[in-house]
Structure formats: C-alpha cells, structure tokens
C-alpha cells in the first residue's frame, strides 16, 4: 500500500544545535505509530516540522503524493493533518461546544462576522463531535472548569473538527491519573478505528504506548535509532539503556 506520509532526509537545527537530524520514515494509511525517545530527542520538533509550525533546513515531507514541506500550518491542517500539543490548548473562557464550533468555522475558512451571530453555526455537527468523544452532556459552562481528562477529550473533538486523515498527538495522556489514561487510550483507539485515521503520537507512558501502537519509532539525539513492533522495541538493550530503564524492559 502507498504510504500516506513519507518523510525523507528531514533536518532542522537551532543555532548550531541539530534537533532533527536526517530523519526518514513512512507511515502507511491506517497505521498507528508511537514516537518515543529521551527528553530532547527531537520528538516535538519533528511534530512541529510535520505540522508546518517549523520549516526544515532540508528534506522533504510528502503527504498523499504531494510535497507539503514549506506549506503553512493552516494549509497542512486543511489537507488533513491535525495535531494536539503537550500543553492542553483550548479557549478556557468559552464553552466546550463553542470551542468545537470555532474549530469547524475556522476549518471552513469562515470568519466571524460582526453583524451575524456565529452562535448557531455548525451547532449540530459540534454536538455530534462532543458526543463522539464522550462529552455529550457537557456542552455549556466554561471549559476551564472541566476536569483535565475532559479537557483532553475536548481537544480531541476540536482536532476531529478539522476532518483529519492523519492525527499527530503530542503526549495525549500526559498529566492524567491511571483511569482517565486508560479511558483516553480506549477513546483514541476507537476514533482511529471508526474514522480510519492514521496516527503518530509521542508518549512517555509505556502502558499507553504499547496498547495503542502497532509500530514504535525510537528517536535519540535527533535520529531514528530503532523502528519496529512494540515487543521488539521493548526488548531492545539499547532502548532500555537510553530510554526505558529497568522497569519497562522485556519482562514487563
């Protein structure tokens, strides 16, 4: 099958520090892949390059047979690559449904008009997305008052409003207690299945990594040092010594 995303020779440096160093990999449509590696390995930089928030110094990124290196973040998003951030990014003063409505409006390139209220725009569609992530009963009130787990769900609903084919999730279960973590992991798996999404995600919680990913790519000092199925990666001596430590080794 043709890959959905093909990255070749991608590099990015910051004032002499090479954060992403000649990275190549391909994601096939429908694949769920985790990106792991030590702190500072270049995971977030790679995400920023793929989502157009940063320009690479060299290399190419092909998505659905189209070169997207050099496209703006907004263009890339409209092509169907949506991402979330390590830090939850929502409008905390607005309600959950307003957050999703704004995403829908933005994705369809309609701006707010001063004389026309946007309050009713895409209301049904927004409600449907909220229901899809398990927030059917949480349309109103300020988002800032939602529990952290619910904010993460909302973030996923906002991301889905972009109608993505490829989802980039940066530490989707960060800061959650175990039960919410498991709930979000189940939600991510369900969304990927139901919407035939391709997924690339960074995560430090190994339980989440191993229960979502089919393939794991290990990044170290800006380079890919290993790529393979979860059990191969988990058993790898080098990965254990640079990243996993003793607790998450082969025995676990």
């Amino acid at each position: 099958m043709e890959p959905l995303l093909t990255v070749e020779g991608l590099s990015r440096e910051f004032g002499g520090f090479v954060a992403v160093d000649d990275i190549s990999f391909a994601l096939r449509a429908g694949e769920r892949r985790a990106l792991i590696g030590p702190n500072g390995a270049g995971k977030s930089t790679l995400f920023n390059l793929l989502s157009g928030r940063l320009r690479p110094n060299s290399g190419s990124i092909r998505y659905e047979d189209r070169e997207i290196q050099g496209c703006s973040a907004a263009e890339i998003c409209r092509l169907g690559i949506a991402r979330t951030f390590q830090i939850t990014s929502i409008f905390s003063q607005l309600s959950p449904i307003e957050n999703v409505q704004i995403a829908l409006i933005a994705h369809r390139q309609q701006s707010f008009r001063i004389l026309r209220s946007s309050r009713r725009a895409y209301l049904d569609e927004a409600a449907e997305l909220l229901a899809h992530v398990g927030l059917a009963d949480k349309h109103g009130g300020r988002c800032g008052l939602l529990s952290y787990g619910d904010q993460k769900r909302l973030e996923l609903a906002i991301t889905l409003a972009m109608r993505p084919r490829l989802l980039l999730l940066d530490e989707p279960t960060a800061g959650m207690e175990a039960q919410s973590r498991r709930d979000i992991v189940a939600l991510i798996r369900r969304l990927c299945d139901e919407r035939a999404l391709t997924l690339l995600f960074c995560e430090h919680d190994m339980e989440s990594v191993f229960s979502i990913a089919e393939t794991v790519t290990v990044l170290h000092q800006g380079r890919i040092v290993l790529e393979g199925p979860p059990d191969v990666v988990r058993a790898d001596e080098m990965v254990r010594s640079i990243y996993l430590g003793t607790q998450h080794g082969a025995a676990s």
Partner: protein
Amino acid sequence: MTELLALESIDAYYGMSHVLHGVSLSVGAGEVVLLLGRNGAGKSTIMRTIMGLVATRGVGRVSYAGRDITGWAPHAIARLGIGLVPEDRRMFAKLTVRDNLELGRKEAPVAVKRERWDLQRVLALFPALADLQTRRAGTLSGGQQQMLTIARALMGNPQLLMLDEPAEGLAPIVVEALAHQLALLRTQGLSMLVSEQNLSFSRAIADRAYVIETGCVRYQGTLTELDANPQAWTRYISF
C-alpha cells in the same frame, strides 16, 4: 514526629469558585507525604496555597515550623525554606540553563545537616542538563524543562520540598533516576509533599498519603493502611 507544616481548615477560592473546603493536613519533619486524587481535585491548589500563591479566606491557618504563615507573601515563604516545583514548569526562557539554576541558589540554614545542593550536585542528578548549561531554557524540550524546574528548586536547599507531578513528561529512565534521588533525599531527612499520578514512582518514597476529592480531604493514612483498604482505593483513586 515534629510537625513541620500544618494546614488547619483551609478554604480557598478562584474568583467565585470555592476550590478548597476546610482542608487540614500536616507534614512532619523528615516525612514524605503524598497527595492523591484525580485531576482537578485540588492538589495543586493546596501546594499553591501553602506557597502563598493562592489566598485563603476564613478562619483557616497555615503554619510552618511553629510560625503562623497565613497570608505571607510567596517570597517570604520561600525564604523560610519551602520550595515548590510547579506543574507548569515556570522558568526564565531567555536565560541559560545555568543562569536559571544560579538564580535558584540559596544556602541552607546552618542547622541543616543534609548535604548541600550546588550546581555540581544537581547536574549529577540530571546528567542531561550538564550538556545543556549554555542553552537558553526556552529552547529545551518539555521534559528537559521539567528537569530544570526540579533542579532549580533543589538549588534553593529547601527544608520542605513540594513537587507537583514531578515525573510528568520525563522519560521512564529519568523517572527511575529521580525516584532514586528522592529516596536518597528522604534518608537525609528532607521533608516532601508530593502530588504524583505515577504511583509506582511515588509509593516507593512516601510515608503517608492524603486522598483529595473536590477540594476536600477524603481519606488519610499511611500507605500500608491505604493498601489494606481496597474500598478507599476503588472509591477515591481506582488506579
């Protein structure tokens, strides 16, 4: 055990929202106390209240080493020897890693017998930071910023160290090293108040735990007691 920190019937608000309801808890000298509870339960607010970053209302009192510090300014509380590692990794983004660490430097009171923290020692704890000393803090990755925040708090040689989700965003191998170091600090008599979702990390170092739910203390006890009470686990934590 001598009581180092005590909260008595603390009420706190964010604007109109009443977020802490009559919270009472204590940390003894040399004790490591865990705050457990779901996201949004009020654990961070408790730490911010102790640090003077959230004002209390009502009759509640915060006392530290026998002094009433209710209503004190955060810098005055810091000078008493309370250090906070906040969840949101605040740092001086334009300054180098080394400058951030130097800014956190504060000598320990003479009476403290622990080994003093200095640049060399914090860099030995986080070897990853040693190579980044001249980098601007704002260019670090999320996990590296987390290490820097913890290292900077240690540079202040606190008597009571409050860690809000310290393992968050750190590679598993770094979490192991951190757990090892905190266990070592505990044997040296450092008092700690720790909020952490990663229980395999926090259980190993804690003496006692409080379970916080919707701004109230729902349960307290030693970890052995908590382990022997599956109902409390299921009801309040369900890990």
